């Protein structure tokens, strides 16, 4: 039996040679025979250059917002600052430019010659926008941290075996779940057109945040003993997020519900941390997670507030949440999550019962916070929530 290739030994792109060959053939056909515009542009450019003539049409400012210079604020030059300049901050309710032409540039005269990218499908501003997205983007950039350097790794202490294994299992869970919070925005990022560039920018920071979280928990586990068990319940919850039918629905499930619960786990993680290293990891991560939660709340609010038929939008969101909450509950009742947290909370395997009692008290608080966030978004779930307000194993 052949050995699996190491990641650094893989040189060819994914897929078989036949698939690659077929892909190249399709690409050739498209760009040689189907798309005529670029060849005409190249011909025109070649002729211009051959003649030694210049085209200075780009000096014309008709149709441009030229000359209205953006002024930096005390923080530097933010998106908010440049969006205050007339001609640049007007976001369409429905994007029509399905290419890379920057919002605010002179682009109309060239529309007929430009390509159309059918992958840009999220054209409704209501599906992506949140009133706090500019603030969150600036904050995300300002509050980045480095999982290699900013954690005092050399202070990591060896814990008793039960606590170390519980910590490593919690880190395995977090390593498993964190990247869906990267894959989900990644899945939608390239479907969002350039006119919503601020949202694309914020989602890019979320990707970076999630990469760092996956990194830091993987490092913590491997530095402390190793990764332990992945879990099917986690996987189904992650699949439910990734396969959400719309960006808003997935953002609700990921950012508002899922990350809201993970934020609670991070806060619990900081509380039950047995080393300064773990304290620092969880405190850093909970800050990032809270930004994602805030986007989720305000994105849902914008969607509902601007939907042409709010009742219909609410009904669809409820139908989605009825399923989504149950699938997410699968993850949050898994033994590979609940039991290790209970052991950490109780202070050891022998005290797991006390830990479960403590978790029961926290559970109600987590769910209440989730329901409050739903209400803040204008999405009342209290009467319909599929997640029990009290822990399924009974309150203390």
């Amino acid at each position, binding site marked *: 039996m052949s050995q699996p290739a190491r990641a650094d030994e893989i040189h060819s792109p994914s897929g078989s040679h036949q698939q690659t060959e077929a892909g190249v053939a399709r690409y050739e056909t498209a760009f040689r025979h189907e798309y005529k515009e670029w060849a005409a542009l190249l011909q025109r450019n070649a002729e211009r250059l051959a003649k030694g003539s210049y085209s200075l049409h780009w000096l014309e400012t008709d149709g441009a917002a030229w000359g209205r210079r953006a002024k930096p604020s005390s923080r530097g030059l933010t998106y908010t600052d440049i969006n205050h300049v007339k001609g640049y901050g007007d976001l369409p309710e429905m994007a029509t430019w399905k290419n890379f032409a920057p919002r605010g540039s002179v682009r109309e005269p060239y529309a007929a010659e430009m390509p159309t990218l059918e992958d840009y499908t999220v054209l409704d501003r209501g599906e992506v926008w949140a009133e706090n997205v500019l603030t969150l983007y600036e904050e995300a950039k300002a509050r980045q941290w480095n999982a290699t350097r900013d954690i005092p790794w050399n202070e990591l202490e060896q814990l008793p075996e039960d606590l170390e294994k519980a910590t490593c299992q919690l880190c395995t869970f977090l390593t498993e779940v964190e990247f869906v919070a990267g894959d989900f925005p990644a899945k939608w990022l390239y479907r969002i057109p350039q006119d919503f560039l601020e949202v694309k920018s914020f989602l890019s920071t979320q990707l970076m945040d999630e990469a760092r979280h996956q990194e830091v928990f993987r490092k913590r586990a491997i530095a402390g003993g190793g990764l332990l068990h992945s879990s099917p319940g986690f996987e189904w919850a992650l699949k439910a997020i990734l396969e959400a039918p719309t960006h808003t629905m997935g953002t609700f499930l990921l950012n508002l519900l899922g990350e809201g619960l993970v934020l609670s786990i991070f806060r619990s993680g900081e509380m039950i941390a047995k080393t300064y290293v773990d304290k620092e990891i969880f405190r850093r991560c909970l800050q990032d997670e809270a930004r994602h939660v805030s986007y989720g709340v305000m994105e849902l609010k914008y969607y509902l507030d601007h939907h042409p038929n709010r009742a219909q939008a609410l009904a669809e969101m409820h139908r989605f949440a009825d399923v989504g909450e149950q699938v997410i509950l699968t993850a949050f009742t898994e033994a590979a999550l609940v039991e290790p947290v209970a052991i950490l909370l109780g202070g050891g395997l022998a005290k797991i019962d006390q830990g479960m009692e403590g978790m029961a008290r926290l559970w109600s608080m987590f769910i209440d916070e989730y329901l409050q966030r739903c209400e*803040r978004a204008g999405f009342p779930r209290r009467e319909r929530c599929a997640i029990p307000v009290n822990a399924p194993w009974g309150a203390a």
Partner: protein
Amino acid sequence: MAQGGAAAAQESAVPFPSLEWFRRLADLMNANRPRQEQLGYVDCVAQFTVLDGGSNGAPWSAQVTFEEFEASDVRAATAADVARADFSLEATLATWREMIESIARGHGRPDLEHTLNYLSHPGTPMRLVSDDPLRRDLYFRYNQSLQEFVNASGSFRTVFPG
């Protein structure tokens, strides 16, 4: 982490709870801008309430306004000022004292059981209060900065009533 040392120790002790105590923290934060730039923006109004810290055991509160990399304002707060704060952290004097003493013992770092999050997460002995979940979440978004803000108390001596 707050820088202390012999010079700071020689300074006069600062009473807690008092505006002077919070202003000292603000001054220390503002004097260490490079660290704040590492941690990132903080934009919120945080209220610190000592439930029995006022006269005759009444509540006493200070509001600290954080803007960008600075603590720009420290003021006393009455019940009428509550709405101005994004969130409040409420605890008894005994809890605050325990936390501050832990930070002092750790020379600017509390032990594992006296971080802000440790004390506030279960809702007791410290309580995080806000009537708006988005404003409450600011406490989480800036948690590291807020922790380092109080950690700076390790660089001077605090005295308590009684």
